[in-house]
Structure formats: structure tokens, C-alpha cells
């Protein structure tokens, strides 16, 4: 069975400092992995995806993630946090059969001025 585990339920950073949101995955197959963001009272927006091409994936708003098979990780990073980055972030794996998405528990990112 496939799954993702987000290692932090809440991360707090200061504006202008780096962001690191951690995600480990479990999959018998080469996984398709995603990060989605959910701003307060908004829907889920796709940040970036990994589908077995380049291991370093660039997404929107300056975010990127690196797929590390040896560590079964897919951590999300951003060099410099902005106040508008404050939101809930979900690491997601897509099942190989049927295509349903399996979500992690979510990490709430707070950005302090």
C-alpha cells in the first residue's frame, strides 16, 4: 500500500528565511508525488509534481521539492518565505491503480513578520 507521512504538523518561520516541509513516502512502485497548498477558506492548489522525470522539481511561487529514493523523501523547500505562504501544505501520493490521491496529514506553515 502507498502512503505519505508529513513529519511536522506545524512549522513556523520568519519572513525571508528558508522553508522546509518534510514528507516521507511509502510505495512499492515508482511513485507519483505532489504537493498541494490550501490557503484559509480556499480549495487545494497544486504546487508541484514528481512523475519520475527530474528528481528536483520546481513549482509555483518559488517552491521546489527533491525526490530522494534512497531516503524515501520528498521534502518541500523555498529559499525565502513570504507572508502569503502561510497556509496548510499537503504531501500527496497517487496510487498506481485507479489514480486516487492519498494525502498526508498536512503541515501548517506560519510566517512571522
Amino acid at each position, binding site marked *: 500500500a502507498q502512503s505519505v507521512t508529513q513529519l511536522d504538523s506545524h512549522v513556523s518561520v520568519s519572513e525571508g528565511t528558508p522553508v522546509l516541509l518534510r514528507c516521507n513516502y511509502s510505495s512499492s512502485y515508482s511513485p*507519483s508525488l*505532489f504537493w*498541494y497548498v490550501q490557503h484559509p477558506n*480556499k*480549495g*487545494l*492548489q*497544486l504546487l508541484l*509534481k514528481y*512523475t519520475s522525470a527530474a528528481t528536483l522539481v520546481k513549482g509555483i511561487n518559488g517552491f521546489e521539492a527533491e525526490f530522494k529514493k534512497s531516503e524515501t523523501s520528498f521534502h518541500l523547500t523555498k529559499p525565502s518565505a513570504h507572508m502569503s505562504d502561510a497556509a496548510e501544505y*499537503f504531501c500527496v501520493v*497517487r496510487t498506481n*491503480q*485507479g*489514480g*486516487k*490521491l*492519498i*494525502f*498526508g*496529514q*498536512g503541515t501548517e506553515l506560519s510566517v512571522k513578520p
Partner: protein
Amino acid sequence: EPEVTQTPSHQVTQMGQEVILRCVPISNHLYFYWYRQILGQKVEFLVSFYNNEISEKSEIFDDQFSVERPDGSNFTLKIRSTKLEDSAMYFCASSGSTRSYEQYFGPGTRLTVT
């Protein structure tokens, strides 16, 4: 830019009542999904739909739930007899194909069962 839309944004209903949640997927997409998020919990898959039939459903998706694509644009989720534990945010998503893996989500419908 095309987007998935959902109506209503918020629905309040009494226990035992039927509700229909509506979604308009992106127009050229072929795969449709419903997910839900109970407050404070993770997003959970409910059902996927392709070629006018259910492709996959979760254990949550019991006989009280049904989905339909009544015309070329709408995709609906019906709950026949709502329970308190059905209170959640319900998200519709669509995908162009299984090869393009991205699923695009609507803004959600918050269902409150009293």
C-alpha cells in the same frame, strides 16, 4: 485559466435529509473525483468516475452515497440520508487523463449536518 467550480459553497441540512453537491469539472477532462475533509483530519478519497461509471470507491462511499454525471458538464455527489458524521468539506477534482497525473480541485462545499 480553466478551473473546477462547486456549488453551493456552504450547505446546512438536517440529519436524515438528502443533499446534492454539484461540481463543474474542467471542460475537456475525463476523470472525476470526490474527496472529503472532516475538520481537523486529512483529506480522504471517496470515489472516482470515468466513462459514466464508478472506477473506484472507498469504504466511506457506502450505499448512502451516489455520483452522477447528468449532462456533459455537471458531476454530482448525492448523500441520501445525511448523518452528523457526514459534516465535512467536500472537494471535487478532475483530471485530463491518467497519463497527466494532476488532479485539479474545486474550492469545496462545506456541508454541515445538524
